[in-house]
């Protein structure tokens, strides 16, 4: 079944999907969506795919997914026979989902801070910068704990979709003026994600990571 990604190069969520597709080595077709300046996500045609206007959209046969969490979970469940990106053993799976929901919850304030810094996109979050910084501090703390436990990634020794969901928040932080100078474990972890086979970069991800 062929995979189609309705995509915008500059979207952090689209990048999450591209990272997963790359790591799983899945061929896919990109359909570019004119989000800025064209506001194509507000058109009836796009809303038919994505009722909330969320981007990206992954289409696989009859399946149309517009929530990034669902896209990551689906790709891991459907296309990762080894079951490492979303572990099957219940406790490891729960830990992965715990970090995934953190990455797509509190840590999403980083996306809001970035959208505001680049395009002055309004956010439902009252103070995206403060919340983004607070969430990055939590990420640093989680990674410091993993390091003390001898684990390299957010949910254990192996990378999972939680790492892919969290990576764009940290790696694109320079777009809103956060250079991660005070978050050393986050910097080292982004380097490890970068070094994974199938990694793809995007504009805004700095070379130093």
């Amino acid at each position: 079944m062929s995979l189609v990604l309705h995509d915008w190069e500059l979207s952090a969520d689209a990048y999450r999907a591209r990272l997963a597709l790359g790591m799983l080595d899945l061929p896919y077709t990109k359909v570019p969506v004119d989000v800025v300046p064209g506001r194509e996500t507000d058109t009836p045609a796009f809303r038919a795919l994505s009722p909330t206007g969320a981007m990206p959209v992954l289409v696989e046969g009859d399946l149309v997914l517009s929530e990034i969490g669902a896209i990551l979970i689906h790709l891991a469940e459907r296309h990762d026979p080894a079951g490492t990106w979303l572990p099957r053993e219940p406790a490891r799976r729960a830990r992965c989902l715990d970090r995934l929901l953190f990455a797509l919850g509190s840590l999403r304030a980083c996306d809001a801070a970035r959208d505001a810094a680049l395009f002055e996109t309004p956010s439902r979050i009252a103070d995206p910068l403060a919340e983004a910084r607070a969430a990055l501090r939590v990420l640093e703390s989680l990674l410091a704990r993993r390091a003390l436990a001898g684990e390299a990634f957010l949910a254990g020794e192996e990378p999972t979709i939680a790492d892919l969901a969290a990576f764009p928040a940290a790696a694109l932080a320079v777009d809103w003026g956060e250079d991660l100078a005070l978050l050393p474990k986050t910097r080292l972890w982004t380097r490890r994600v970068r070094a994974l086979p199938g990694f793809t970069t995007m504009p805004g991800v700095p070379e130093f990571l």
Partner: protein
Amino acid sequence: MTRDLEPAVRDAWHVLCRSADLAPGAATRLRLLSRDVEVARNAAGTVSARLLDGEAVATREAYGHVFACLGTPAAPLFDIAEFAEDDRRLATCGAVRVRASGLRLVENFLDMAHFPFVHTDLLGVEERPEVPRYDIEIRRDVDEVWATNCRFWQPRAAASSAEGQMSEYLYRVAGPFAVMLYKTCPADPSRFDVIGLLIRPAEPDLSYAYAFVLVLDEASSETAIVHFQQTIFLQDRIVLENQRPRLLPLAPNAETPTRADMSSVAYRRWLKEKGVRYGTVEGLAGHGEAEGVP
């Protein structure tokens, strides 16, 4: 109200917004040169603008954008002759906010030496970083800076490129905050694509960049063309937000140019001759609005 602005900036044309972002009957407030400006389009389609505390300012609509001059226009809006060629396609990329002097944005746009490192595998490759000698002149008749005979090897020069090419460039600084380039068109090597960067300086160290492309490209979708330019600009933006200081220094010993930076040297000299201070280190004392400038 605008008396404290130097004439070279006050009497020049600056981009305000894209035409498409101002519907008939709509009005919007924007920051330009540390002033609040309201720009509106009436039901008949005519654009007007005024400083928020009263005075009307001159406006022009051209090249897919709305321009304003806060003083008395020293010259007509710069001419981009290629807009008269009807086989070209215009794509406007919208505004990107950058925490840096608009003058730094122009200078980065004039620079070829960063292609292999900032636009790796698109506009340059690390294996071919050399910038051959090019020519630079300040054209006194039109008061513009031109760099000509620029050449650089590019793996993917445009959205329509399938393979690498030795690109030929001409750079043109049409105003302190307006710059464009003409480069070899992958589809028709006898003609040039036009890429422009129009900058709205909101504060000395805060800019809004409006990129446009005027290309001979029947194959790429407009969205693909816009995405390509956005990708390039976002790569530049990392650099622009992390140059220190954020304002452009005009003092010759503040930074270290080489022969590849001849265009930047000429641009700085031209700015200095014209008395441009807005967005420069030297002008910092004159414009108290820049906060947190290191």
